[in-house]
């Protein structure tokens, strides 16, 4: 049980004081993350060039962000599904059912039952709670069919794809339901933002927390006498992260509320807009929601037993079971979590459209799976990251919006997106073979 042969020679030494390492390798950055970021930046720059600078305006970046949220939220859940070697084809249809339940709750059922006014904020919260509960329960049900009855997830969710979209149809009798409650609509994007000041505060807090986390991780390594990267490398990374966060806030804050919208808002309060007054939208609530989901899902993936078991099960289901992990129950939990996130994505999607229509979420299952896969989630299981899936969703949305702005016809848009999906997986495969093992 020696491993002398593998430890000697070749490759950079791993001791903390190893000299003569390149600048980049000392930063110990994740190469795949860099690759995806590079691809994303490239897509943005190319479209910016082709649209004569229209792509990277604050307004378009704002729109891009809010269009990405719904798919990105679901993609984080899809990572866990795919990591455990399953698939969920029903997310788009389930989103329609959740959205239908939430719309009916706030527009029909609760107002009729409780006699509440349509603008009552309580309607929004009750509807959201119901939507999340329905999503979670249906997810858990599908998970039980997969985990306990052993029906392949592909089949269960293929059935679900047909079932849930049409359950949604029956709930609304095929009608479009709306307009949705104003409080509910504030989760959709433009109708609910933090505003300039609060956005800066949120950005500063986020930057501080990110830097604090970097250094507490370092302190933890030092405490256990593990090798750490040089302090300057840590500072450089902290600075880049903080700059990225604050830069994003600055861009969103640069998108100003149009004058006529301000006039309308002031008029509603019986005032007039003061001379020279401007206001910025700032960070949309929906984007904050996505950030919250991203943080929570990353913590689950990396720092909880649940997450550890998800990855262990994906890597070797038999080993996980022999280690005492209840893989059947784990499957139920993973699908229930997916259902919960679908409910959450349903809030954002319906709120953004300001009403519920029956075709909401159509083809989302494909976008969500594509986002997870472009983000480096391996269909063979055991491998995937939350940030990758969100970046994947962002890349997909940028491609789609960019092509629309450039005036590419929609059939060609789909051809491009489809090809990019296959290409992304191919590049990832080649990368993994090069790096080996992983």
């Amino acid at each position, binding site marked *: *049980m020696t491993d002398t042969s593998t430890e000697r020679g070749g490759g950079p030494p791993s001791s903390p004081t190893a000299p003569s390492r390149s600048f980049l390798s000392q930063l110990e950055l994740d190469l795949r993350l860099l690759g995806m970021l590079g691809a994303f930046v490239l897509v943005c720059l190319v479209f910016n060039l082709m649209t004569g600078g229209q792509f990277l305006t604050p307004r378009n970046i704002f729109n891009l962000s809010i269009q990405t949220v719904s798919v990105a939220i679901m993609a984080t859940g899809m990572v866990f599904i795919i990591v455990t070697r399953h698939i969920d084809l029903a997310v788009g249809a389930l989103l329609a059912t959740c959205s239908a339940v939430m719309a009916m709750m706030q527009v029909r059922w609760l107002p009729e039952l409780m006699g509440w006014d349509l603008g009552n904020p309580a309607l929004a919260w009750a509807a959201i709670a119901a939507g999340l509960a329905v999503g979670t329960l249906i997810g858990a049900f599908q998970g039980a069919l997969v985990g306990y009855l052993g029906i392949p997830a592909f089949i269960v969710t293929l059935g679900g794809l047909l079932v849930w979209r049409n359950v949604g149809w029956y709930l609304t009798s095929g009608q479009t339901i709306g307009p949705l409650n104003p409080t509910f609509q504030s989760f959709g994007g433009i109708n609910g933002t933090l505003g300039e000041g609060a956005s800066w505060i949120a950005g500063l807090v986020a930057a501080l927390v990110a830097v604090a986390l970097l250094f507490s991780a370092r302190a933890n390594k030092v405490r*256990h006498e593990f090798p750490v990267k040089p302090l300057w490398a840590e500072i450089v990374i902290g600075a880049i992260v903080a700059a990225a966060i604050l830069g994003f806030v600055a861009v969103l804050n640069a998108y100003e509320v149009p004058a006529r919208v301000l006039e309308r808002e002031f008029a509603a309060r019986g005032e007039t807009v003061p001379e020279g007054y401007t206001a910025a939208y700032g960070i949309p609530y929906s984007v904050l929601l996505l950030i919250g989901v991203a943080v929570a899902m990353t913590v689950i993936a990396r720092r909880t037993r649940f997450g550890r078991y998800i990855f262990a099960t994906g890597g070797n289901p038999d080993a996980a079971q022999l280690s005492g992990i209840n893989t059947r129950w784990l499957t139920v939990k993973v699908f229930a979590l997916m259902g919960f996130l679908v409910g959450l994505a349903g809030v954002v999607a319906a709120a953004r459209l300001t009403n519920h229509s029956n075709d909401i979420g159509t083809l989302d299952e494909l976008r969500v799976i594509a986002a997870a896969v472009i983000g480096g989630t391996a269909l063979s299981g055991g491998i995937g990251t939350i940030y990758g899936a969100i970046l994947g969703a962002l890349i997909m949305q940028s491609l789609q919006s960019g092509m629309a702005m450039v005036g590419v016809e929609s059939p060609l848009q789909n051809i491009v997106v489809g090809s990019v999906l296959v290409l992304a997986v191919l590049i990832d495969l080649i990368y993994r073979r090069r790096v080996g093992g992983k």
Partner: protein
Amino acid sequence: MPLDRTGQTPLVEMRDIRIAFGGVQAVDGVSIDLYPGEVVGLLGHNGAGKSTLIKILSGAYRADSGEIRINGQKIDIRSPADARRHNIETIYQTLALADNLDAASNLFLGREITTALGLVDDARMEAETRKIMARLNPNFRKLKEPVSALSGGQRQSVAIARAVYFNARILIMDEPTAALGVHETAMVADLIKELKSQGLGIFLISHDTREMMELCDRVSVMKNGKLVGTERVEDVTEDDILSMIILGKNPRREAAATA
């Protein structure tokens, strides 16, 4: 140095164990026992039912009938977690490791060390892994890499470390040296002797009769799911064991019976 076991309670008793897969009676009324500080070898052809028998003890399978006693107490092992609760640790023939996780995550899989907040404490688990590996396999350094990047011997040492770290009292080793080179095999043999001297009971499965004669106190031979017999190694020769495996009977006993 044959020990007198009369009056002593066995660490493990498996009585009249049966299990069938479809039509195949994989284990057919087998009874074996194991005392503290003892190594009992399981021998038999491929498909004789050795792995299946010990998987019943490790909670991977549930017996159709029969009973298991630990320290004289009848217990019910329904899952691998139950077995672990009784300090039964298993090193499986098919090395049950999650390839995508690193050594520490595998070592602690199912029994992670957590922080006060209930989050997994990777730094501490890695430090503990470092410590136990320094003892078992001082050359082991690939702590951060997924175990798919390890050699067969390195993977084996992760599996063994898992059993040792969690203070097994009953250790099951299913062909632990099958994938190993000469040097690594010797290390496993030394480890078995050390653990035995610490009072663990060990079930060892191997096809190497010579190795078994050297390491085991007793050997049990199985054929077609049935127990052929259990012998103390000092009472039999390697040839006797071979004929038990091949013919399904012990020539010496047969001779004694007809004499």
